[in-house]
């Protein structure tokens, strides 16, 4: 495969070969492998052969499996380290605090699974039964599945290219004995690549309620998050709303607020206005959230009544664009997420 496989617009002096490629008709399209955009694509011959046109039979298997799952929610962000897993874990805890609901978290971050640590399940293993892989339970009504449970040691690296990651995700969706669930929360890695495409495709038969998008306030993060929103639009995945995390830091000593990650372009609020998306809430940087994650404890269970949280309470500071509420705002965000979900039904 030579470098010449990408067409280059020589006459313009500017190189824009990938713009054309973004018009990829998709491997299941009638034009797969034959449209102008396919010219020079490494996958052209595979697409043109018609092999990918048949939908993966696993999609039907997953649809049947997921028939017992009422709501499926993805947690997405183009950017890494913005708090996807923290939000997923806390959302799951909040949902599971209603003992009548059955909740599960599926961690499809194959190369960097954080959910086991954040939910206090490091070193746990997955068992196999007649009805499939048994997930690990945090509470009676809160199940978790992650590639982290399949590794022998915390140092083990999953050095896999796309197809193997996709195979693992397929197995997670099809072969795990999820049972009857009210909510399945899918935590994803950063980016818009194999894992994201696979989850959306494999769940295309079963249907996804929507995605919650997590960002931090600065433009360096928002520029990636806008790409993720574009991804959702491309694959027709509804967006439940956006959560802005790490939104301002209140010094525990002097109570002054600092914008560690400054919202120089208006933060999530401006982005949501521009793109007509609901802003579900803004969660401040709170050292206790990170600490609880490291210890695998639920922030919502640990902190609400603590005296320390009093100092943060009701600090409603209207800065330029950024409104900082309390750390319990996380709970509020989650409740808003849920009411948004219920509205959709």
């Amino acid at each position: 495969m030579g470098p010449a496989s990408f067409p280059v617009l020589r006459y313009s002096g500017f190189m824009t070969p990938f713009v054309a490629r973004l018009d990829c008709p998709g491997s299941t399209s009638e034009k797969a492998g034959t449209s102008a955009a396919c010219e020079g694509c490494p996958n052209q011959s595979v697409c043109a052969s018609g092999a990918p046109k048949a939908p993966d039979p696993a999609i039907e298997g997953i649809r049947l499996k997921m028939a017992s799952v009422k709501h499926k929610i993805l947690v997405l962000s183009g950017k890494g380290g913005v708090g996807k897993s923290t939000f997923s874990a806390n959302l799951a805890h909040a949902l599971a605090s209603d003992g009548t609901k059955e909740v599960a978290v599926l961690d499809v971050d194959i190369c960097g699974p954080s959910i086991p640590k954040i939910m206090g399940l490091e070193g746990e293993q997955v068992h196999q039964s007649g009805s499939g892989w048994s997930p690990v339970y945090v509470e009676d009504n809160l199940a978790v599945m992650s590639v982290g449970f399949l590794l022998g040691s915390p140092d083990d690296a999953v050095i896999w290219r796309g197809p193997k990651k996709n195979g693992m995700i397929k197995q997670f969706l099809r072969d795990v004995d999820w049972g009857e669930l009210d909510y399945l929360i899918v935590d994803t890695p950063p980016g818009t690549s194999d894992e994201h495409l696979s989850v959306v495709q494999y769940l295309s038969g079963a249907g996804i309620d929507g995605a919650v998008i997590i960002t931090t306030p600065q433009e360096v993060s928002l520029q990636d998050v806008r790409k993720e929103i574009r991804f959702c639009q491309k694959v027709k995945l509804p967006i439940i709303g956006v959560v802005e995390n790490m939104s301002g830091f209140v010094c525990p000593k002097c109570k002054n607020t600092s914008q560690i990650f400054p919202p120089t372009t208006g933060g999530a609020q401006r982005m949501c206005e521009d793109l007509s998306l609901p802003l579900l809430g803004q969660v401040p940087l709170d050292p206790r959230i990170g600490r609880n994650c490291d210890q695998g404890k639920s922030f919502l269970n640990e902190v609400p009544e603590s005296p320390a949280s009093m100092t943060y309470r009701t600090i409603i500071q209207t800065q330029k664009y950024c409104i900082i509420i309390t750390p319990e705002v996380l709970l509020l965000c989650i409740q808003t997420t849920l009411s948004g979900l219920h509205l959709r039904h």
Partner: protein
Amino acid sequence: MEVASDPGNLRNVRHVVLVMSGKGGVGKSTITTELALALQHAGKKVGVLDVDLCGPSIPRMLGMANQHVHQCDAGWVPVYAGSQQTLALMSVGFLLEDPDEAIVWRGPRKTALIGQFVSDVVWGELDVLLVDTPPGTSDEHLAVLEKLGKHRVDGAVLVTTPQAVSTGDVRREITFCKKTGVKILGIVENMSGFVCPHCSECTSIFSKGGGEELAKLTGSVFLGSVPLDPLLSASMEEGRDFLQAFPESATYTALQAVAETLLHALDH
């Protein structure tokens, strides 16, 4: 000595350093940017290759957003910062017409583009080529090693934040380096403590010391801790040269020390 087997356009590149982390959002691109600027200020010719295809951050951080890549007979001309032509950058961000456009690509296409970046970019003479990678241990990382050739890579700088959730992912990246035979040049702890600009109280928002501990645990060189500094994040947003703008700050000293240790490691 291996010059003959090198891809033509990398012939005059002396050192290649990967900047990696298992974890996202820990500051790989920020550290890459600051290392590039520090090396440039030290009189070196520096190239930066951004192989984070789904989330390219470097163009904005170096104040080079909205630039284009030109084609010449020898290949693709990288974008230069300033007129001195001592800091060159190549990123997929330069190839998108609309900056919000998503690159929704599976592995093989990402691998193919990285191959082109390695073989087709006319880097010219460089002292150091820094390669900024996305989080994880997957297609992009394998592609970089495969296309550059393992012998061509001097080693990797690993970036982490102090908390266990992050060092856990970096431990996996260390395993990746060991398995693929990439030398670990050192570990940087980023976002290490925040000094309140109002009262000077230092709060460890993401805990403290995790990077140094990890370096000890794995027998790696600890390159230093870089504090959480709103001036640094603001500089990244605006594409301003932080090292030039704030030479009196503690963050400057920390970044400078990381760069010097790295240079020393490369030259010995």
